[in-house]
């Protein structure tokens, strides 16, 4: 279980968890004489069942990359231009402690601690709270917070993280805007299973690659219009009455009463009893009963008069009234979406057929929350999955809500063949807690009383000053992005540079390539990182600490670099407190173990963070006697930290004898137990507890036992998002907390408690069509964001990207295959090389994400194709949205969650005149190579060493 170094004789297989992407497959590293020789999948692993993807196999080249950082670095000259110098860990930790301690003692908010695609947010978020800064978030805000928030506020689970399609049983599978997905291998395995069974797969995507290529149907939708398509499907199902009414009545808020009292503070909120319980009308007795009364049989229709005389109607009736309007019909959707009305109608018919005609029945008796026994579960073999094609638009939250509405109407939630919750979900809707970071919660030298991220339920949960200004540097949980459950990493640098809402002192980044592919308007971001305040001569963002494992673009802009290990050299946890690897039928979590000892002067970032926590005297990391609480670093923390009594980072093998699951005192031998089990823990739910989990009494009780829920109460899905109405009421002038004037209309418009569709602000801002094409990126299967290019194998597969244009569109523009083209958005121009294809919606152009690289970075020669022919679309994406509701412009983001609207980009494409050089632009100066990094060898004969050894 401990690290082994090179030179060790013989061959061995060591299990751990892949980290070439966030799918977190179980892998086996085959070592020969201490060197990794082969990585394959762990066949026992619940996530990947033995398969690994291209990146997973290429983990060896990731680990052996010449771009690996070798020692802590300190900047000596100008950011981005001058060299960094190697320093000792002692000096690095001293500097960091000094910078951080200063901030903590004066104004902890002046530390902005943002992490990227890491998987230790349970630690990093906790650390930020201990430090006392609300300015903490991970990458979710620019990734898929629309999906996460829409799911959490609707179902208590969400696509990917907390839910999965049951493709073993589905007959029909709809994929909205999915390229590779986070759950790449499970999704591929599922598609294979569906194919083998003859299920129908429908890909709704402007681009036809990968999964869409093998779908039975490809619906080339115009970007940003899915909401219209989905609501047209809703219309069709309602019109035909092909919905699961009993399910809606039993498992959702469909029968809950909504007050209709326009102009009053209670308008549009659920009717509640004095105890605050939502009411419904019993359809047999007509009595008003609390919706969670086991005897209630909620009626889905009919206005009632409440005891106080106000009128109220069930959610379902309001909803049906809205969506039965012919304005939601397929004809209306056909124009903007580009999907012909007959196709939409046929899809609706197919949905109804697959869902309701001879549904499968799983004879697995279960008991519902009312105590009623059922002989089994009727399947709803319609699975829907959606990802960033929905998420990365400024209407993504409402669109994702619309998709969940569609699922709920079909009753296709957590039943055989449908979307299923992954443990630890479902959680209450919306889940606890609310975010922490209001002025009274932040004080010098003190931890915050709660976690910085959470789920607000109304204006009172926002993090705003008395005057309505944001409390957080990224303006998350402010009136600009009230439900920003994951924060807004994409706004941090811009806001900090502008000093809006306030300047910061230290920007602490971890595993986020913010000076390149995770920035919007990359060149502008770089300018902000290097801009100085003329008054003081200091950088406007004075101190930047960054932890990366590789020589990425962002390293060049840091003042202090804390070099991390690779994933084969450290302990990690995929924890229930963060993003576990749960499955629908099992509670799972996993770890990574150090397979190899680092051969450089690098340290696991988590160890460093824990050490900094102790040096700063953060209570949770410091013993009463002043010593470190976790002298054994992260491994020690994983075993001994308790978030709440009995609840720690890892759920398996708890308790002194390792017999407890989920809850229990720490087990000093817990990590050994994980290692012995292939580095994962899987606890399968017994029969009768697997389906209908939100209303399944035995499941709910089990969830409480395992520490996944605090109360065994039924979880009703919400067709109606009451929290949105609370914000809307505030915008209408009700309550003590109201949005600033400039934002009232915006909140009124977007905070509709029922899902609706609106065009992207980018589209609205361009009525003349100056930028006639949508431009989106896609994930290449064999590359992970920016980290593939230093991988000698993966970069051979995809070392340069093209701009793919529909053949017809290109011809109309006089563009031929291979022509250099200029791509222009409202903020800039880049060059690209065109590729003509059939498989793209004619009004859309696309390219692979993050293949273009800054010259000089990643250990590549400066004339590498990634830098000369590859290009980065991010240069064209504005950090701020078009137009403005107030003086300061708003983020280019969803108005509800703050999710970055990457895929709302609109461009113009022109052929570049002959003679102009066809290189990628803008041409930023090559970055200097940091000290100590080896010159990459001209020839690679990987594998020769094993032959030699075997002879």
């Amino acid at each position, binding site marked *: 279980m401990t690290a082994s170094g090179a030179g060790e004789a013989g061959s061995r297989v060591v299990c751990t968890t892949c980290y070439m992407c966030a799918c977190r497959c179980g892998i086996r590293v085959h070592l020969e004489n201490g060197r990794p020789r082969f990585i394959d999948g762990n066949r026992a692993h619940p996530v990947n069942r033995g398969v690994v993807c291209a990146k997973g196999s290429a983990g060896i080249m990731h680990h052996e990359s010449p771009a690996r950082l070798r020692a802590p670095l300190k900047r000596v000259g100008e950011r981005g231009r001058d060299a960094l110098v190697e320093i000792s860990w002692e000096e690095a930790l001293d500097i960091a402690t000094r910078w951080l301690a200063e901030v903590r003692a004066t104004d902890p908010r002046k530390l902005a601690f943002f992490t990227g695609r890491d998987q230790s947010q349970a630690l990093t978020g906790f650390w930020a709270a201990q430090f006392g800064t609300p300015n903490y978030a991970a990458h979710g805000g620019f990734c898929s917070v629309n999906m996460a928030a829409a799911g959490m506020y609707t179902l208590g689970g969400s696509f990917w993280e907390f839910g999965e399609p049951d493709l073993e049983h589905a007959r029909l599978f709809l994929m909205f805007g999915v390229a590779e997905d986070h759950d790449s291998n499970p999704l591929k395995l599922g598609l294979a299973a569906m194919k083998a069974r003859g299920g129908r797969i429908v890909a709704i995507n402007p681009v036809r690659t990968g999964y869409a290529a093998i779908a039975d149907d490809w619906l080339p939708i115009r970007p940003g219009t899915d909401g219209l398509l989905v609501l047209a499907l809703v219309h069709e199902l309602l019109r035909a009455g092909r919905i699961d009414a009993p399910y809606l009545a039993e498992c959702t808020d469909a029968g809950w009463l909504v007050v209709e009292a326009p102009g009053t503070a209670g308008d549009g909120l659920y009717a509640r009893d004095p105890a605050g319980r939502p009411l419904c009308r019993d359809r047999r007795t007509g009595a008003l009963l609390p919706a969670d009364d086991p005897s209630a049989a909620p009626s889905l229709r009919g206005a009632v008069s409440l005891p106080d005389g106000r009128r109220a109607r069930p959610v379902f009736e309001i909803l049906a009234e809205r969506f039965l309007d012919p304005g939601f019909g397929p004809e209306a959707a056909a124009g903007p979406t580009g999907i012909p009305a007959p196709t939409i109608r046929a899809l609706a018919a197919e949905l109804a057929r697959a869902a309701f005609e001879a549904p499968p029945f799983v004879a697995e008796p279960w008991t519902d929350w009312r105590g009623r026994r059922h002989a089994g579960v009727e399947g709803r073999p319609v699975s829907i999955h959606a990802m960033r094609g929905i998420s990365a638009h400024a209407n993504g939250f409402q669109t994702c809500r619309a998709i969940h509405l569609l699922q709920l109407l079909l009753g296709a939630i957590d039943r055989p063949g449908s979307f299923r919750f992954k443990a630890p979900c479902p959680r209450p809707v919306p889940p606890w807690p609310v975010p922490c970071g209001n002025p009274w919660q932040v004080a010098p030298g003190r931890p915050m009383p709660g976690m910085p991220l959470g789920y607000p339920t109304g204006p009172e949960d926002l993090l705003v000053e008395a005057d309505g200004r944001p409390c957080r540097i990224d303006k998350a949980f402010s009136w600009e992005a009230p439900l920003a459950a994951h924060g807004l990493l994409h706004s941090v640098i811009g806001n900090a540079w502008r000093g809006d809402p306030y300047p910061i002192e230290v920007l602490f980044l971890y595993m986020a390539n913010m000076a390149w592919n995770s920035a919007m308007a990359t060149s502008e971001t770089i300018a902000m990182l290097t801009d100085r305040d003329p008054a003081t001569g200091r950088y406007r963002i004075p101190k930047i600490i960054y932890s990366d494992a590789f020589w990425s673009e962002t390293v060049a802009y840091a003042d202090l670099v804390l070099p991390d290990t690779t994933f084969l050299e450290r302990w990690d946890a995929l924890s229930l407190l963060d993003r576990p690897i749960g499955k629908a039928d099992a509670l799972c979590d996993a770890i990574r173990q150090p397979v190899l000892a680092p051969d450089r002067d690098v340290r696991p970032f988590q160890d460093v963070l824990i050490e900094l926590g102790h040096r700063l005297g953060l209570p949770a990391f410091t013993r009463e006697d002043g010593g470190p609480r976790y002298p054994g670093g992260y491994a020690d923390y994983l075993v001994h930290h308790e978030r709440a009594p009995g609840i720690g980072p890892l759920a398996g093998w708890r308790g002194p004898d390792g017999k407890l699951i989920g809850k229990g005192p720490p087990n000093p031998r817990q990590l050994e137990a994980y290692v012995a089990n292939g580095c994962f823990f899987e606890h399968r739910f017994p029969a009768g507890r697997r389906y209908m989990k939100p209303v399944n009494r035995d499941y709910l009780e089990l969830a409480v036992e395992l520490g996944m829920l605090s109360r065994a109460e039924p979880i009703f899905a919400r067709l109606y998002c009451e929290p949105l109405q609370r914000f809307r009421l505030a915008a209408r002038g009700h309550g003590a907390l109201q949005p600033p004037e400039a934002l009232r209309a915006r909140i009124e418009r977007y905070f509709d408690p029922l899902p609706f569709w609106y065009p992207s602000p980018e589209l609205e801002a361009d009525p003349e069509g100056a930028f006639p094409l949508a431009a989106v990126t896609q994930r290449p299967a064999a590359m992970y964001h920016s980290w593939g290019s230093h991988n000698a194998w993966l970069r*051979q*597969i995809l070392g340069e990207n093209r701009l793919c244009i529909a053949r017809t569109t290109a011809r109309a523009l006089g563009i031929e295959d291979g022509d250099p083209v200029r791509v222009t958005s409202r903020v800039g121009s880049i060059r690209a090389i065109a590729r003509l294809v059939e498989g793209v919606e004619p009004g859309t152009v696309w390219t692979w994400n993050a293949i273009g690289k800054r010259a000089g970075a990643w250990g590549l020669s400066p004339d590498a194709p990634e830098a000369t022919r590859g290009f980065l679309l991010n240069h064209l994406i504005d950090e701020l949205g078009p137009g403005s509701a107030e003086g300061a412009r708003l983020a280019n983001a969803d108005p509800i969650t703050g999710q970055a609207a990457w895929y709302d980009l609109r461009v113009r494409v022109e052929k570049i005149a002959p003679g102009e050089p066809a290189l990628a632009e803008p041409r930023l100066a090559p970055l200097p190579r940091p000290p100590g990094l080896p010159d990459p060898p001209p020839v690679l004969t990987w594998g020769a060493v094993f032959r030699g050894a075997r002879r």
Partner: protein
Amino acid sequence: MRPAASLLLFTTLSGAGYGLLAVWALSGLAGVLPPEPLAGAVGLVPALLLIGGGLLASTFHLARPDRAWRAFSQWRTSWLSREAVAAVATFAPALVLAFGWLLGGRVPPLAAFLSAAGAGLTVLCTGQIYATLVPVPRWHQPLTTPVFLAMALASGATLAVLLTAALGSGTTAAGLTALVALPLAWGLKLLWWRSGDRAPPRATAAAAIGLAGETPARLVEPAHSAGSWLLEETGFRVARRHAARLRRLALLFGVGLPWPLLALGLLAGGGWTLLFALPAVLAKALALAIERWLFFAEARHMVGLWYGEAAV
């Protein structure tokens, strides 16, 4: 296909060398050339030098020349192996011939005959290597080997004219051979070009992915953006226009110029023959280089079907 310098040198030099060897040996056998050492030396030394130089060049094509000796083992199946065997085997009679002629002052008849036969056989093997390569349709046609043979003869004979003229005997026979072989070789070449140009493609991209019925198929995402040895070997392209111009040049220098020059030189006789044969040989050499370059450059390998070619 990539026109590798090693292969251009090998096929042209050794081709000309074997052609010369054959012409010289047969001339000696037929008594057209006198059995004097000088008469032998003037032709056989250049022939053996050309052959040797070509064979040496061919080893530069091998990534592991240290194992070249293994190439003699598979003569039962491999034309390349047969070529190697024939090439080396031909040295035996050729050396006997050279010793007999240069040192003994006589032309050993069997050695002369075997030298000529060996030369022909070796060139035949060379031609067969290419002619049997199914994946390269332009090579895989019946005329490929005859073209190689005729080209070798024409080159050898042209050279022989120059050498016999310098020697001052046997010129007429060499000259007549050249005057027949040149149009024959280039005529065959012209036919070979035509049939290569006109042959319908052997396969389409759609067929290459098993979907022969569905048309068309276009490559949209290359397997690798990086290169490979195989692509460098097979991916060489020459523009059609450029190739057409080169073909005309090759014809001009290959037969258009040398034939009248040789004819005039022969008619004029004496020192004129030598004077006219020199530019004819140079032109022919240039033409041969172009022809051989085009032989590779114009040939397409079927692997191109997976790399963007619509049909091969």
